[in-house]
């Protein structure tokens, strides 16, 4: 029988960006519904607005678990490799930047509870908050890719040195 135990670190690592992307897509859904508010769209938008913090909470839990328990090995590898800035700049920024869309995600369902067809202030706020969540999340996804590449090229270097 296949044991998942050796793959727990990888599974947790992949679940983190998966829920991050799902939360970003839900925020995009909210943004589109808020740009065209209507009776039917109000319910859909509120469902999507609840999906945003739910996905971000899961991304937070899985990413946090991996960061606290497994990242130290990658960090040492990255810092010893050709791209130390993948940790010093990108990971350090990413781990704190994450809290910005996470907090905005918690706020989104609160402001989406207003009747957006008649409440212009709330509608503008929903558009802005959803847009900020999307932009920050894309930046975080990009930073994650740089961290991943920093570890990859550091590992390549170690492998190359081993072969020599």
């Amino acid at each position: 029988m296949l044991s998942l135990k050796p793959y727990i670190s990888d599974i947790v690592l992949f679940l983190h960006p998966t829920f991050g992307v799902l939360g970003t897509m839900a925020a995009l859904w909210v943004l589109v519904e808020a740009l065209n508010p209507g009776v039917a769209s109000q319910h859909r938008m509120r469902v999507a607005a609840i999906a945003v913090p739910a996905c971000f909470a899961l991304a937070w839990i899985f990413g946090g678990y991996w960061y606290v328990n497994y990242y130290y090995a990658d960090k040492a590898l990255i810092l010893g490799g050709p791209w130390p800035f993948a940790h010093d700049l990108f990971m350090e920024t990413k781990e704190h930047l994450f809290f910005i869309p996470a907090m905005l995600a918690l706020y989104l369902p609160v402001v989406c509870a207003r009747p957006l067809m008649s409440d212009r202030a709330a509608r503008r706020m929903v558009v802005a908050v959803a847009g900020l969540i999307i932009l920050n999340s894309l930046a975080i996804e990009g930073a994650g890719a740089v961290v991943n590449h920093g570890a990859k090229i550091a590992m390549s270097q170690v492998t190359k040195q081993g072969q020599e």
Partner: protein
Amino acid sequence: MPRQNQAERLDGAAGAFGAAAAVVLVFNTALAWLKDAWAPLNDGMAALTGHHWITHGLVDLAVFVLCGALLWRRGASFNGQYLLLAVVAAALFGGGGLSLWFLLV
């Protein structure tokens, strides 16, 4: 035009937690700067939960919830445009402040 002005205001939970979001975005960046510059704070935060990042997230969450609940309870009402600008400015300050800090320091 009192009816228009009323429509442009954000009150209740939407106003209170909007203001709380602006506050916590600035607070998050300030705390990141402070703990990165002052090791005893970082160590103290790590000792509280086992990792400074866990404490950082929980403190952010507490600031957001407490600040929002307090403003809501006090019946705070905000000009919608000003609150929107505050949230956007806080997010730009927060993101830009973090990137520049880790780029330059």
